[in-house]
């Protein structure tokens, strides 16, 4: 099933893994603002969950690039 893939160098794992994270970052960042803030008591910048998501995922990108 995946024999042909076994010849791929290991850095392809990093590339695919990083692309996976980047894809989720882009998806999270493009959520509409009103959808993200729905139910929030105010519209302060720190309540923007898109920023939370991006920060959390960028930490992951660095970890996966580093290791």
């Amino acid at each position, binding site marked *: 099933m995946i024999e042909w893939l076994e010849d791929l160098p290991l850095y392809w794992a990093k590339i695919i893994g990083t692309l*996976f994270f980047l894809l989720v970052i882009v998806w999270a960042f493009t959520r509409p603002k009103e959808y993200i*803030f*729905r*139910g929030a008591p105010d519209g302060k910048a720190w309540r923007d969950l898109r920023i939370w998501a991006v920060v959390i995922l960028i930490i992951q990108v660095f970890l*996966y690039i580093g*290791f």
Partner: protein
Amino acid sequence: MIGGIDLFIVVFFIVGVFVVGVYFKKFIHTSEDFFLAGRRLGWWVIGMSIIGTNIGSYDYVGGAGAAYDVGIAQANYEWIGAIPAMVISALLFVPYYWRAGAYTVPEYLGKRYSQPVRVIEALLWGTFLICCLAIFFWASGLMINTYIGWPIWLGILLTAVIVGIYTVTGGLTAVAMTDVIQLAIMLVGGFAVAIIGFHEVGGWSGLVERITVEHPDHFRLFLPLSHETYPWLGMIFGLGLVLSPAWWCCHQAIIQRTLGARSEWDAKAGMLSAAFLKTLVPLLYVLPGLFVLALATEPLADKDQALPWAIKNLLPAGLAGLVFAAFLAAIFSSVDSTLNSAVTIWTRDIYQNFIVRKASDRHYLNFGRGLTLIFVVVGALLAEPLTTSFSGIYLAMQTLLTIFQGPTLATVLLGIMWARATRWGGLFGLVGGVACSTILHMTDMNFLYVAWWSFVAAMIINALVSLLTKPEPTEKLRGLVYGLVMKDEHIQNSLSSRVEGGE
């Protein structure tokens, strides 16, 4: 075995958690208070409770052993195998469950598809959670036996009495609040172990130098495809794309905390804050596993002895007690959450749905409490026979999960994302996916690939059957499908008022 100040710390922890848990009884007046903490949980309580629930004793013992054996690749289970899924869960799945006003994931599926889908999901998750409960009880008895020397049955009894009483009295409020306390202890304990471990090995560079001479792959997150248990492709596709979203988007014990959120924003922020905490979790068991590898002069006969070795040889008196309290915290927080979620599913999706439909709220509250007691007894009695019939605790969990996680994810995903998915598509997709994973499980296929292919099978069957059957009326799908809600402000407002009105 521990004694002296360590034993004092452990006893203080056990008594303290019991007292605190029972204190929250005063917040329980209705069945909604009991099952969903009265929908009053703030985001940080939800986040900490989710992680407290998620970390079990098998993470500590099995995870440290695996880190000793394969290195930081074990952290994939916490990072790529959790965090993207948690972000997706927070921003896609959680808002729909919350807006639907559901108590359980099967309840959402019942609204979206049909009663048969709800019942199948409820029976699968309800049975799985009871099995988990038995396994957690056994793990608790085993751990108390190993470190304190009490008989296994006494450890199980102690766990059952303490966790059982505060879960019966305080419901989800007690469960979530004690989870918060317990997670803080786990993190402080993990942080202290990191300090002493790095001191012993000479910092990060010392750790790397000591290990990479003989184990050059121990600091790689991705391992080659030829690796028996951690092939990188399986990690990304099986774990990252299927098993992990299935866990973080569909697991009742995880999702239930977000359903108890005081607002939709708190529900989403709770899951995201849990994702942030998840980044730190490898501190708790991957690092200790590596410290043992770097410091032990002789290789360990059994890799699962890595953590006991660390406690015996690395930790000073006092800290050893705190770390053991953190183990117990991991078990208690898993037991209480699993117990509460199993009771919620059996009460809402089976008892209230089929057996006694229109009783008073007090009736369901009392039933939930009674069922909690029954499940404590059943879990404790099943602990030994269930775990000894499998070759290992972790394998038992994995086997049960693999069979229905992929199909569940496919059913929920299509239900939320695709308005054309019909009741028949959902039913056949779910049943077909479970059948597929059961068949594949009998072959030699790695469980990560079983998860992937059963997910794909369920998606295809659901889509094909849906296209061949009559579409669901738009009125039924209002608020339950992504596209419809995103386009319609009126639906969003009516759903918010529905939830606020307690429907």
